[in-house]
């Protein structure tokens, strides 16, 4: 009986140790992947979406203002005033 209890304790100890070993040996999970930055759905050859934006004097500027007159370079320069 004693022998049986001893082997049960030993078995429990082994199980406990293996659980501990699993906890300590398991390599840490890789940090969660950052979501990929968005890519535009627009393609070369498509019509550019109309925009109505305000200039530094508070005047509205539309893409259609330039239609038939000028080519437009629209540069999204986010957080321009932050020096970033």
């Amino acid at each position: 009986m004693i022998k049986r209890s001893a082997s049960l304790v030993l078995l429990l100890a082994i199980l406990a140790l293996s659980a501990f070993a699993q906890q300590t040996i398991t390599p840490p999970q890789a940090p969660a992947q950052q979501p990929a930055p968005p890519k535009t759905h627009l393609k070369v050859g498509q019509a550019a979406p109309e925009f109505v934006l305000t200039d530094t004097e508070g005047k509205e500027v539309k893409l259609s203002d330039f239609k038939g007159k000028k080519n437009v370079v629209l540069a999204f320069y986010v957080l321009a005033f932050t020096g970033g």
Partner: protein
Amino acid sequence: MDSSYSNKRFAEDIGVKFPLLSDWKRKAVKDYGVYNEASGYGMRATFVVDKDGIIKHIEEGRTAIDPTGAYQACNLFDKKKAN
């Protein structure tokens, strides 16, 4: 996405001669597909649009800071005009 006031100061500081537009409501960044929902900001991107309103060149991400791609796309317009 910066305010018109911030843009005005920025334009004065660096002496730009082209219109600096504010997308305060983040509509243009969304319409052009360069809005990052996670950060709440737009991505840097450059679109070259011809006189007919057709997109001729797109530069996104880090390379959008370098104006070379957009400059080359504009050169194509000049070459077409010359031909």
